[in-house]
């Protein structure tokens, strides 16, 4: 308890000019630590210390959580939430991309009085096929659906990417466009993060386009799907990238053409 108070106090004290302000965008690479908080399933905490400031962040709200054996690239917005759940300044929205080329010493902190967060279904979740969805209403015209990825891969993120893809699928199934153009993007513009120059390979744009195109062909048999590539690495300000510019650059766009 005392320890928790101290930790909280330390977090709140204006130790340096680097202290996080609500809304600040933080981006860094470091090893994650798992805190064994227990409020039922999926309630444990993920904490990462920013090597530049020493500030401890709570990144547990990331849709794709860390692996304690590898470093993560953290990108997030400092939220106003109290650090009481896990013992770190809460980032929300937040992403944690696993960097499998950077091993970490696996470490687990005990709960130390922190409760973690009781699991609640994230707002981006897909519904069972048995549940009849209300069909989207027309009129239908050309529309673009983005899907977002973690850094360095083409994996469809559970309760994020799958949700966005399902939304696109439902709309397309109702709208009957003439064809779909799937454009893959990669964050190819080098960004300095914690002393590393982070740039995704251009091939990843192609890989992402192919992965989503394959899913679309399975979801919508008979629908013409064309895969394209854009390696410029430009960010967008689409709302489903949650106001995280780096996230927005790692995407696929599904364009429905009539």
């Amino acid at each position, binding site marked *: 308890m005392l320890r928790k108070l101290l930790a909280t106090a330390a977090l709140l004290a204006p130790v340096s000019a680097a202290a996080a302000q609500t809304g600040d965008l933080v981006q860094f690479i470091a090893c994650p630590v798992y805190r064994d908080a227990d409020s039922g*399933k999926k309630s444990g905490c993920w904490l990462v210390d920013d090597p530049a400031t020493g500030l401890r962040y709570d990144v547990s709200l990331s849709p794709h959580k860390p*692996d304690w054996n590898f470093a993560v690239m953290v990108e997030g917005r400092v939220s106003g939430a109290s650090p009481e759940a896990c013992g770190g300044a809460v980032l929300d929205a937040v992403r944690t991309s696993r960097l499998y080329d950077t091993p970490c010493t696996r470490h*687990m902190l005990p709960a130390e009085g922190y409760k973690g967060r009781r699991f609640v279904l994230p707002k981006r979740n897909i519904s069972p096929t048995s549940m009849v969805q209300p069909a989207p209403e027309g009129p239908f015209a050309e529309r673009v659906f983005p899907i977002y990825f973690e850094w360095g891969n083409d994996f469809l*993120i*559970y309760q994020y990417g799958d949700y966005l893809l399902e939304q696109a699928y439902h709309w397309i199934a109702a709208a009957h466009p003439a064809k779909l153009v799937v454009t893959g993007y990669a964050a190819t513009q080098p960004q300095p993060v914690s002393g590393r120059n982070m740039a995704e390979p251009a091939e990843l744009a192609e890989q992402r386009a192919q*992965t989503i195109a394959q899913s679309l062909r*399975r979801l919508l048999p008979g629908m013409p799907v064309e895969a394209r590539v854009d390696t410029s690495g430009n960010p967008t300000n689409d709302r489903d990238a949650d106001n995280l510019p780096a996230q927005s650059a790692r995407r696929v766009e599904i364009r429905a053409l009539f």
Partner: protein
Amino acid sequence: MRKKLLIATIGLLGSATLAAPAPDRWWSPGEGRVFPASLDYANAHGSLRLLLDGGAMKTKGHAFFEPLGKNGRACVTCHQPADAMSLSAATAAERWEKTGGKDPLFAAIDGSNCPALPQEKRESHSLLIERGLFRIQLPWPVRQWNGRPVTPDFTIEVLRDPNGCNSGAMHGPAAGNISVYRRARPVANMKYLLAVGFPFDPKQGVALPRDPDDGTMMSGNIMADNRAGNLRMQMEDAAHGHLEYARKLTTAQIAQIKDFEMRVFTAQQVSAKAGALDTLGAQGGPRKLQASQPGALGSIGIPVWSEFAAWEKINPEDAKTLSPEQLAFRQSVARGARVFREKMFLITDSAGINSRVGFGNPVRNSCVFCHNMSQMGNDVAPGQVDLGTTTMPFADPWRDLPLFRITCLKAPHPHYGRVILTMDPGYAMTTGRCADVGKITLQSMRGLAARAPYFSNGLAKDLRGIVDYYDRRYNIGYTEQEKQDLTNMMSAL
């Protein structure tokens, strides 16, 4: 022993209806029995019931029951009703004793450790007799579920070949194949295994593939390595591989086998220690299973194993109708169901859960995280998860199984690194990805009492062995009471 069991079971039945006394437990190919609408068989934990949807069926001339190929086997040889449509090691041992090893079950092709061994010797069939394992020869390099070749992102070398089926002129990677050893999976309650709950495979991060025959999405939940996407592909593989049937199954045979597979349901009906499993509000037994909608996620609907929820609080009036032992056992089963859902532990380094999907490594959850389908306990999503049952350092180092060294050519495996030692690469033999090494498709959890040993390679010799494996694998720290409750609950499924 068997007789005693049967009598003990009948004594406990009470008001439960008993189908006509079962004839011989063993179903020989082509014997032409009628498969009744309801059929009971005693086992070490009580008795199992099979229900045939739509009523009794003649098996004379039926493609599941007739010996189609040259070795005299039928599908039923390895998918025996008394063993919950699988085959227990005890039954295999019994057949060996009874027939002096002459039963077609022991056919050299896969009912022996390797065809090149002297077939008349018991030790040449030790894996089947002691652990219920059949030899499965898989093509190398890899073929996908649709038969298309894929270029694997790993190499495979044989480190140990105790049976001779992974080396020499005919066998092993250099000869274009590898041999692994697996349990027969139960062919019952099939609508659950084929049900599609969501359009995506969250573990692979893609939409589910379509069935080439009827265009529906495929569940990805059959076979340890999902090398067959639908029942037609599975039975063609089985007819060729297990029955040594040289011809192609006809459309009529395919339809007949599928019809039977979709109609047969099974679960434990009577517990030797608790009595009938569908009394005092409980909903055990196959009737509920047959009647329910398949494919539902327990966490958002009917909780997994809530079949026994009514036994959490048995009122004093009802309690009087039970012996103290029966009452205690029922309470234990009900607690076991809660332990299964509610006792949390840290799941670590299990590909399919801790990678690539983003639950985190570790993630806190319970048995029901993976075994999440209502009524069945298999995975609603395609259930390929690496529990470590076949792969070092988590598996038991069985010296009588082959050991392979897998080297990942591109990215290392997220949990094992670049080099992996495994006795069965599992799903990787279908996808060609080193990230899938050791993943085995979750099975049905019904009728467990009738089909020991457990896990794809028979690693757990009894139900308690399953709990002990998990306790060790994930450092769970179950109390002795929790272990017993889980074991008792599983004996009632």
